[in-house]
């Protein structure tokens, strides 16, 4: 499993970081375009320091990187780390695909007390 390929502490930090709505929102934004911390701070109803703190949590979790660019610090999403989170959801997706396929097999079975699918009650 993908989970086992990652250092457990890294996984813990990654998911603790993603458990917060504001931080998830920041990650989504900076995956598309890098943004300065000050630009990000303007988007949220919280102090610059609070946004800076969120960015620091994301940086420690490896979800974003920060680069000094002149006077600005630009935040950019780390696609590989977010991809790792997506893979966990894909594992969960496989569970549901299996269930939905088994429902199909079940509905296709003729049963003595139940008419076949096409002739069934509407």
């Amino acid at each position: 499993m993908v989970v086992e390929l990652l250092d457990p502490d890294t996984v813990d930090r990654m998911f603790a970081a993603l458990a917060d709505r504001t931080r998830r929102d920041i990650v989504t934004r900076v995956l598309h375009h890098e943004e300065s911390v000050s630009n990000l701070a303007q988007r949220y109803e919280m102090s610059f320091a609070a946004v800076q703190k969120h960015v620091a949590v994301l940086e420690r979790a490896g979800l974003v990187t920060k680069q000094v660019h002149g006077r600005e610090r630009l935040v950019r999403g780390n696609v590989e780390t977010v991809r790792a989170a997506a893979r966990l959801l894909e594992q969960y997706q496989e569970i549901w695909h299996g269930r939905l396929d088994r429902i199909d097999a079940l509905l296709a079975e003729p049963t003595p007390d139940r008419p076949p699918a096409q002739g069934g009650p509407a």
Partner: protein
Amino acid sequence: MTVLTSVTDPTALTLTVTAQYAAPPAQVWTVFSDPRRLERWWGPPTWPATFVDHDFRPGGRATYYMTGPDGEKAWGWWRFVSLEEPRALTFDDGFADDSGTPNLEMPTAHASVALEPVDEGTLLTIVSRFDSAEDLQKVLGMGMEPGMKQALGQIDDLLAAS
């Protein structure tokens, strides 16, 4: 393949899957309402589920265990939140201890199922949501479905656009 579309959203922590069945909604409904049918599909073949109670009404609870290859048992629960026969149901599912008592320290998944009549039979849409990524991680980390194969699914739009 039963599944028509399947989209995961890693930032919203949702999974949305649609599937089509050659049976009318009233018949698809029975795979949820009848515990003997429910246990035929809920657990994977290597960990079949047995429902010991199934109080199929809003607010009602169901208790089940899944039996592993070495006879080990993993207990879980459902709570039916809303039932609109035969078109929609929502339920929560979570972990339980060995006596079947819900373990509320463990994560809960929230599922919402819609059954829409179409010419071919029924279009089923399931949306499954976790409260936090930590919860999802815990569910997968518990080895809830030890036999599940690893996904090589699509990378969602978010990643494609980055």
